[in-house]
């Protein structure tokens, strides 16, 4: 209980301290807050591991009146991943976003925005109330747009404005669905909605909410805003934006389809979601192939990697009855979410180091960086293994679970998409890897402290470790897993 509350309030208090305190006390206060929140997230995971899902009705009021929070295996696991990525970004930002380096404005704004984003991500993972999730999504959007606009360049402002445009459209679509749901059932709590009497307007409400969340997750037709926003932001902010922000709206989508309204999962809807995911995998991969800048390749790779997770809908669906493979598909999708978060953050932090060291992230300027900064080259390689889905990385475990579910359920088409996606990832990641590990000795880059280089390496190693020691996370994710995820939608 207190772990859950600490996970929500500590980053908020640290953000307020980072705003109100005088100049030299801000970064220490922010780092202290980050450390405490990391501890709170790990403590919550231990509590959930020992005693099962933790439920808390805020203010002591039960759901139809109050808001309920529930930390199950999925929420706690994403909380730990967020904590690890946030701590790594905070340590990297100490070097890159220091007021002396990035200027007084970015130095002032980055820390509170990062901590506010962290608090709202923790809130998104545990909230059970649809309108509360709308407010959380809006706060995530505002902090993320501010993080994009922090770099101050003209294209960053245009990218931030386009991002805000799409995100507000998505929020309003989601809000329309929430309004219809409350008007029909008088409650907004996910558990109460699961036990509701179906109303004819529910399909429209779920459709509107899904459309809104797809826009915010930047799934295929709505992905246009993501690459420029994520590459225009400063590298630590890009790591947060790509690794974490889409996961919040994705998690709400999973909660809606698997916990709030599983009875509305028509096969046609599941098919559309998965085919959009498949097109995202292919389209994102192709566009990543065509990019010349490292940050743009990594940003388009986000569009592709997010597509895999949408394959969970038909795979965990199956055609009714208890399917043994459904649990594997659902857990595979969560493994992909977790390992992608860690690997993508590592990649963007490496790109940030190269930008500081060489002044540019064009592939032609990064030839031979592995010889100059060996740890970063190794980190980028490990992260690429995860994104390609090669053993023993977490990405491989995810693809393995999804593929077995695809073959067991006879839907081999999705297995084909998984294989094609893996090949495409190998293709678009080969060019940066070839440049970084080139034989030529790079022109002398600026000296980068080894402690800074170790941060992305740590994240990349964690994303691979997720595959090596995958039995513990696998059991962890089964805690409080929704029933439809077991026997299919």
């Amino acid at each position: 209980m207190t772990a859950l509350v600490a996970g929500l309030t500590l980053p908020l208090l640290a953000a307020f301290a980072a705003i109100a305190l005088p100049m030299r006390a801000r970064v220490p206060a922010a780092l202290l807050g980050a450390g405490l929140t990391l501890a709170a997230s790990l403590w919550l995971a231990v509590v959930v591991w020992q005693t099962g899902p933790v439920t808390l009705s805020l203010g002591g009021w039960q759901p139809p009146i109050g808001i309920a929070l529930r930390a199950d295996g999925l929420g706690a696991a994403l909380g730990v991943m967020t904590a690890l990525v946030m701590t790594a970004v905070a340590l990297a930002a100490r070097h890159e976003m220091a007021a002396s380096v990035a200027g007084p404005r970015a130095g002032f704004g980055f820390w509170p925005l990062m901590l506010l984003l962290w608090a709202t991500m923790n809130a998104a993972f545990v909230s059970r109330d649809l309108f509360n999730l709308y407010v959380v999504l809006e706060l995530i959007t505002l902090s993320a747009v501010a993080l994009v606009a922090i770099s101050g360049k003209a294209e960053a402002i245009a990218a931030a404005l386009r991002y805000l445009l799409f995100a507000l459209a998505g929020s309003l679509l989601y809000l329309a669905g929430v309004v219809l749901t409350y008007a029909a059932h008088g409650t907004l709590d996910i558990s109460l909605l699961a036990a509701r009497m179906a109303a004819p307007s529910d399909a429209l409400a779920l459709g509107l909410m899904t459309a809104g969340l797809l826009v915010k997750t930047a799934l295929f037709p709505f992905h246009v805003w993501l690459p420029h926003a994520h590459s225009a932001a400063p590298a630590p902010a890009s790591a947060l934006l790509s690794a974490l922000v889409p996961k919040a709206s994705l998690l709400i989508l999973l909660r809606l389809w698997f916990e709030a309204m599983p009875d509305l999962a028509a096969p046609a809807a599941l098919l559309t979601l998965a085919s959009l995911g498949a097109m995202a995998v292919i389209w994102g991969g192709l566009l990543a192939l065509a990019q010349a800048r490292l940050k743009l390749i990594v940003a388009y790779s986000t569009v592709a990697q997010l597509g895999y997770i949408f394959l969970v809908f038909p795979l965990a669906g199956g055609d009714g009855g208890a399917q043994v493979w459904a649990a594997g598909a659902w857990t595979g999708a969560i493994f992909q979410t977790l390992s992608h978060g860690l690997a993508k953050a590592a990649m963007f932090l490496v790109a940030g180091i190269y930008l500081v060291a060489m002044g540019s992230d064009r592939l032609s300027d990064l030839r031979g960086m592995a010889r100059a900064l060996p740890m970063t080259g190794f980190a980028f390689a490990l992260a690429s293994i995860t994104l390609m889905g090669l053993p023993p990385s977490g990405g491989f475990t995810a693809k393995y679970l999804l593929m077995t579910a695809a073959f067991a359920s006879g839907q081999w088409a999705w297995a084909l998409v998984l294989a094609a996606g893996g090949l495409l990832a190998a293709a678009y990641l080969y060019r940066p890897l070839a440049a970084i590990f080139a034989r030529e000795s790079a022109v002398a880059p600026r000296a980068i402290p080894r402690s800074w280089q170790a941060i992305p390496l740590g994240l990349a190693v964690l994303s691979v470790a997720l595959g090596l020691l995958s039995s513990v996370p696998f059991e962890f994710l089964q805690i409080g897993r929704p029933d439809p995820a077991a026997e299919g939608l």
Partner: protein
Amino acid sequence: MSLTLFALTGAALVGLGVYGLLARPHMLRRIIAFNLIGSGLFLFFGAAAARGTGLDPIPQALIITGIVVALSASALAVGLVVALARSSGTAYLPDEEGRL
């Protein structure tokens, strides 16, 4: 009877806002369109809340929260539009400038 009237007005306002959002590329107009859609949705929500015996206070609180959220988003959007105009001389997104 008047509740249906208000609800249908809300729905029509949402439609108007969506049309304004898609058909008018000027960014300041798009912020106005977002506010139109939001207020139309809230009007629909308020009419739905008034259907029962008394006026259900929970939707009223949600609507006030929604209005303040809409203000914050509009404030940031307006700031971004002014910054865009200052840095690139136009209040249109880069790819939509062609229509000017």
